[in-house]
């Protein structure tokens, strides 16, 4: 066994994932927040913009759910663990920082996917046809990885005060939802809004979900997938690099 080898570090990252799920995700309030938050936002917009079709709103709900759930807990894990000194334990164990970050990302990816599948089921239950399921499910996985990386990026500032990170997280997450074509179709956005939308990975995921349910899309499907993949790789590499630099300052 080479403890520093990729396969062994993957195994240890999976141990971090299981620990995270057990401690942070399998909690009533977290699960309830994960489901209710997007549903309430969706209901607010359903009542406020009755001219938008249900298929459009459900697609947005799926996008929003995955985005919110995959970034709900992960930004606060490092500050929590820093406060409880368990991060110091991990730092003295034979696991790389990259593997710890990967383990945290995998936990939020799994959590995001499971909750999102519930909203997909709600959409199907409301009678929406799933036209391109073969696109939807792999794309949910890809986007979950991307949003989990965003969640971990939000945790980069080396503070051990979770409320600071959660405030920063909310400041970035909510505006992102409004510029990503979830409530306002990209076709109706002003040019400056479109420029902002291009910078958001949520835009491409929502476009793909809409394509899966309605067949309509703003960008070519391959361009959406490529953009999501590029964002995922960039955010994953970025979060691992930055956490490696800031980790000693948490101790």
């Amino acid at each position, binding site marked *: 066994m080479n*403890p520093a080898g990729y396969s062994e570090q993957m195994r240890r990252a999976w*141990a971090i994932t299981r620990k995270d799920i057990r401690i942070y995700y399998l909690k009533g309030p977290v699960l309830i927040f994960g489901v209710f938050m997007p549903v309430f936002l969706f209901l607010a917009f359903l009542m406020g913009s009755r001219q938008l079709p249900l298929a459009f709103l459900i697609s947005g709900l799926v996008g929003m759910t995955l985005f919110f759930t995959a970034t709900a807990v992960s930004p606060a894990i490092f500050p929590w663990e820093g406060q409880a*000194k*368990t991060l110091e334990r991990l730092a*003295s164990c034979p696991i790389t920082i990259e593997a710890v970050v990967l383990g945290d990302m995998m936990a939020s990816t799994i959590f995001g996917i499971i909750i999102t599948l519930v909203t997909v089921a709600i959409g199907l239950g409301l009678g929406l046809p799933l036209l391109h399921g073969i696109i939807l499910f792999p794309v949910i996985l890809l986007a979950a990885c991307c949003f989990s990386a965003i969640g971990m990026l939000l945790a980069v500032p080396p503070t051990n005060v979770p409320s600071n990170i959660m405030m920063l997280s909310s400041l970035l997450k909510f505006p992102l939802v409004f510029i990503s074509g979830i409530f306002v179709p990209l076709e109706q956005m002003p040019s400056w809004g479109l420029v902002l939308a291009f910078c958001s990975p949520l835009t491409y995921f929502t476009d793909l979900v809409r394509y899966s349910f309605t067949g309509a899309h703003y960008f070519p499907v391959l361009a959406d997938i490529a953009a999501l993949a590029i964002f995922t790789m960039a955010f994953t590499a970025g979060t691992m690099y930055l956490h490696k630099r800031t980790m*000693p300052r948490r101790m």
Partner: protein
Amino acid sequence: MQDTIEVKNLTKKFGTTIAVDHISFSVHEGEIFGFLGPNGAGKTTTTRMLTGVIPPDAGFALVLGHDICRSPVLAKQGFGVVPETSNAYADLTAWQNLMLMGDLYGLPRVRAAQRASDLLATMGLLERKDQKVQGFSKGMKQRLILAMALLHEPGLLFLDEPTGGLDVQSTQMILSMLRELNRAGTTIFLTTHNMEEANRLCHRVGIIRSGKMVAIDAPERLKAAIDRVHRVEVSFDHEVPGDALAGLAGVISVNRTGDKWQITAEDKDAAIRSLVTFGIQNGVAIVTLNTLAPSLDEAFLRLTQGED
């Protein structure tokens, strides 16, 4: 004797403060090394650098033959850490904490479960294995932390104040376990404030003051080195004249304290031999004979109270 830890010019700065200032020392394989120093001297910072928690700003540390900065995973695979503050996951049970450690050290599941059962039994925690750690007392948490550090049978164990604030039973259990581990070949790096603990456990101690190593030696030699003169306390079954004692070889001065004589001597060994010969020649028997060496506390205070 091989070195388990080799430290050369290790340095750590926090802003403009130099917490650890170019320290060099080594810990031999199979020994218990006590790392002593007053609060803020740099003990914990040094331990954190040696365990790969924070990187040094200069110098290097070889731990179990691996550079802790360049090959941290390989170094960490071989040692266990018991930090000052209990850092088991409070929301997990004792068993889940141990299994997590097993996974993080790459132990096969069956082996980890066997080791966990054995260690929990040894630590007196087997019946509480399925309870969450948040309900544990401080002593129980500390025993669990020790079990977590020992799960992968490390050849080197770092302990930072392992008995701080514990009751007598937990303290004795941990200390006797450390002795057993050391007898079985485990090298122990012990950071402590407790001089009595260091005196009784450690083969060698290193004393750090203001980030600099001021002494490294065996506790007895360290105690002897701080005083150039030695004190011997003796009592006889008959009265003896003080002048006669003062004239003995190696004796500098004598003082009467109750029924005893306190003798200061440059050479402890010569003075004791003279006293024994004096007793035989004068037909008086020695009732008590004690060497009054300075305690490790005194040595520590002397070494750590100098000018910075």
